[in-house]
């Protein structure tokens, strides 16, 4: 295989193709070479496999839930079994899928490559955090195998301190997963602070890195509180220390404060990296620089900080004082502004762009639609008088699925399709990818729009059975959920198919300008031989399409200021000499 093949016709620079001996996927083989790898890219791939397996498990549980709810009396489970199924669906999706999805899987792969670095700052810590994730996952599976878990993913006391199911085991699992999350966050903060290449100032970082940085701050600051809370819960359950359980003079609302002090910022751990992905996707596939770079970057930080101040909105009905409730309502509204800024900037980026409706772009557009609905419906819940009606109903269920699934999951899929050629070195079938995006979009809306109406009508959440008047909306929602399942399955098949039948990916199939597109697909195990020279990550004027290779190559920027002087070309940014 030719190394460093540069298309002659355009005269642009291109990283060419990687040789097998340098390809990070093939440079060493055997199980041990993966188990003990310190290569951030391989760790990212292992995370990806683990996270997608968890997503499959959580998704199958969701299908079970929707099948059960096709009939008012329930079709599939006993009440006890239903409670366990929805608990595991929530716990698996939150702790094993959404929280680690983008930072751990895509972030691990991308952060060093986008920085032009050879690896993260602490490669061993990175491997350690993967094994912690795996350990936490085993505890969850163990809890499932032993007595199941029926507390809901929120572990509210005193139910969680009085139930017979495996609360201790599951909380230990979440505790361990918390450390995985802290280590990843710490690693990224240090990496981004210390390992940026020459020329990459803070405001020349790709926005994905800004989002990852903001996420990491939350992970490091908030997750320890979850750890403390879960330890206290275990102590309460086993030793009755009297903090959360009223039977021993504790207060259940204290637990809710502790829990949401982590778990609300955790919502932003889930959504901020998604914002980062969308900023990249919209810009690259519109072939136009991102609009309002600084506002998007600052709004990520603003969300990370404001996100710490709004946890009380989960407890408007719990009996907090009126003043507290009103203050939390006000703070909740403030956090909506930075999110709105981002959405406006993304749409403006598309103005007068050159939009390619590739699969990642289809997912990104789908994200804007779904996240806008998710964000706007949050206003109904932040407003106190309407929240008293909608709290703990299906309106909330629909709202957070629009944000978490329509937002984070769709962005994750978009990002996965976007960087798949880079990660695996294979192109997927574009038509198949677009069809999957369309089915996911239709199925998702059909599954969750009816749930807003259910919430309006007063259908409470976490109900194994329900009144017959809610039946038709539940059935509509179930049919949508099955459609969504088929869409996700299609997406999975398209990606799997590409591994076996996909044609080899060029270095820059979409025309991106950030550093990962300057190295081969897949990157060599060392990413870059020399720290690359860094330009504007959103400058597309010198990214030219080469139809012969279906690839984009980098040309020299037109030099407008000194037209007569012949300057040497900037140092090669590619990893290949």
């Amino acid at each position, binding site marked *: 295989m030719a190394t460093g093949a540069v298309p002659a016709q355009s005269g642009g620079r291109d990283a060419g193709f990687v040789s097998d001996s340098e390809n990070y996927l093939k440079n060493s083989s055997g199980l041990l070479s993966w188990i003990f790898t310190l290569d951030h890219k391989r760790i990212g791939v292992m995370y990806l496999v683990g996270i997608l397996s968890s997503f499959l498990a959580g998704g199958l549980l969701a299908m079970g839930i929707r099948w059960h709810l096709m*009939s*008012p009396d329930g079709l599939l489970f006993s*009440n006890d079994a239903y409670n366990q199924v929805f608990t595991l669906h929530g716990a698996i999706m939150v702790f094993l899928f959404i929280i680690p999805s983008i930072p751990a899987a895509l972030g691990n792969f991308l952060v060093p490559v986008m920085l032009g670095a050879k690896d993260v700052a602490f490669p061993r810590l990175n491997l350690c955090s993967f094994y912690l994730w795996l350990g936490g996952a085993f505890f969850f599976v163990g809890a499932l195998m032993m007595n199941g878990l*029926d507390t809901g993913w929120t572990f509210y006391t005193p*139910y969680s301190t*009085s139930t017979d199911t495996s609360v201790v085991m599951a909380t230990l699992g979440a505790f361990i997963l918390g450390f995985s999350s802290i280590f990843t966050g710490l690693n990224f903060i240090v990496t981004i602070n210390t390992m940026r290449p020459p020329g990459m100032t803070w405001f020349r970082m790709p926005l994905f890195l800004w989002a990852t940085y903001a996420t990491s701050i939350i992970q490091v600051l908030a997750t320890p509180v979850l750890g403390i809370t879960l330890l206290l819960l275990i102590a309460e359950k086993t030793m009755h220390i009297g903090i959360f359980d009223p039977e021993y*003079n504790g*207060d259940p*609302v204290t637990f809710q404060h502790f829990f949401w002090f982590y778990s609300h910022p955790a919502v932003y751990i889930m959504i901020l990296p998604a914002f980062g992905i969308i900023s990249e996707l919209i810009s690259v596939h519109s*072939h*136009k*620089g991102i*609009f*309002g*770079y600084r*506002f998007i970057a600052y709004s990520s930080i603003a969300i990370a900080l404001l996100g710490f101040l709004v946890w009380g909105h989960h407890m408007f*009905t*719990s*009996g907090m004082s009126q003043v507290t*409730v009103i203050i939390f*309502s*006000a703070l909740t509204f403030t956090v*909506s*502004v930075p999110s709105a*800024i981002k959405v406006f*900037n993304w749409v*403006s980026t598309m*103005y007068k762009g*050159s*939009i*390619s409706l590739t699969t990642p772009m289809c997912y990104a557009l789908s994200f804007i*639609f779904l996240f*806008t*609905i998710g964000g706007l419906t949050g*206003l109904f819940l*932040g*407003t*106190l*008088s*309407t*929240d*008293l*009606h909608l*709290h*703990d*109903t299906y309106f909330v269920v629909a709202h957070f699925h629009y944000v978490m699934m329509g937002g984070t999951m769709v962005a994750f899929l978009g990002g996965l399709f976007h960087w798949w050629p880079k990660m695996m070195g294979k192109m997927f079938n574009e038509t198949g990818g677009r069809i999957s995006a369309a089915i996911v979009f239709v199925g998702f809306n059909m599954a969750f729009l009816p749930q807003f109406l259910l919430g*309006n*009508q007063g259908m*409470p959440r*976490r*109900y*194994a*059975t329900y009144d*017959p008047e809610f*039946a*038709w909306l539940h*059935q509509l929602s179930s049919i949508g959920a099955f459609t969504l399942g088929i869409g996700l399955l299609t997406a999975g098949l398209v990606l799997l198919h590409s591994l076996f039948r996909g044609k080899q990916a060029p270095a820059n199939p979409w025309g991106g300008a950030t550093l990962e597109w300057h190295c081969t697909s897949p990157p060599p195990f060392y990413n870059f031989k020399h720290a690359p020279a860094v330009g504007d990550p959103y400058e*597309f*004027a010198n990214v030219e399409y080469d139809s012969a290779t*279906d690839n984009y190559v980098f040309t020299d920027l037109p030099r407008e200021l000194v037209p007569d002087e012949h300057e040497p070309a900037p140092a090669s940014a590619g990893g290949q000499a």
Partner: protein
Amino acid sequence: MFNALEILGPGLFGDDAKALWFPDQASTYAAESDGTYAMILWVSAFFFVLVLGPMIYFTFKYHKPKGGKATSRVRHHNLLEITWSVVPCFFLVIMFVRGSWGYLDMQTPPEGTRQIDVEAYKWAWSMNYGNGAIHPELHVLLNEPTKLVMRSKDVLHAFYVPAFRIKRDIVPGRYNIVWFQATIPSEKASDEELDAALAAHKESGDATWNYDKYQITEDGYRYYDLFCAEYCGRDHSMMQTYVVVHETQEDLDAWIKKISSRGDTPPAEYGEKLYKLRNCVGCHSNEPNKVVVGPTFHNLYGYERPLQSGQTVVADEQYIRESILEPKAKIVQGYNPQMPSFKGQLSDDDIASLIAYMKSLSDRGETASDAAQANDSTASEGEAEVAGDDQPAAAEAAAN
């Protein structure tokens, strides 16, 4: 396929009325809450179109084949940024203020509000109307403010009446208060309809009244749903009761009088009624060998009960009374101590009625005291009044 649709019953493929938006506006809060909802909905719709309209337009307008170039290099515009940062804030402030206003209105009950004490427990409600009148249904008076003082006996629950647009968590270890004023009375069904429902209920042999099927209460009123909205364990979704709004004080008083005493009803019959109303039925079945959560009441009275402590007691009047008032005093082997106490909830006459009902379910109902004195283990062949060939099995079930 046709069969499958029938299993699903009424629903997407049925032809029943399909409500879309909100339930009735049956309290003073409802109009304000729905008005705020509508306002937010319009603002949201405006911003949704503002975002999605250009997005869809740009997608088609600037869609170019691969290799196309962007025709604008504008990367920032501070005025635009400030506009779309500041303008939404005005809308947010309006929502916040209006929402908080509505919320504050709901917080302080006016003077002289009628109070009802509410107890929530897994998985039922009991509303205390004073003077021993306790009933799972919530009965209130039209246009009169009503205050609920709510406590939980076990885990978190939440009081939620969609038609009133109000919700409040019920937290163990706290008293949470909610008040409201109902504005639409519950219609009273015609006597024919009530008779038909009562007859159908008798025929069906259901243990409890099926509200969804008859769409009226056992007393013939239309009702509003009252849900538990905070997850509380196995039968969370069945922790529902019903709200009836009476038009006149006399009507409400008559209903309270009706539920507050046994009157001329024979004790065993009244005991059966309490068994259902006070939700003993939620955990204790009255059929042989059927364990729901606690032991079945069938063949309980007069039989020996093996306890967790290793002792054995005979289930006599005093044992049953103690088990109702202090459920954790004597735990039968194989069961968890999770029954709440009914101290102060049941009068002596109520307990006597329940004991009479349990006697009627046991084949030792008449002879237990003699049998206990004689200390026989399995005597009592000839005397069995209830079909009594399942004693060993029943004893076994109780031991499980």
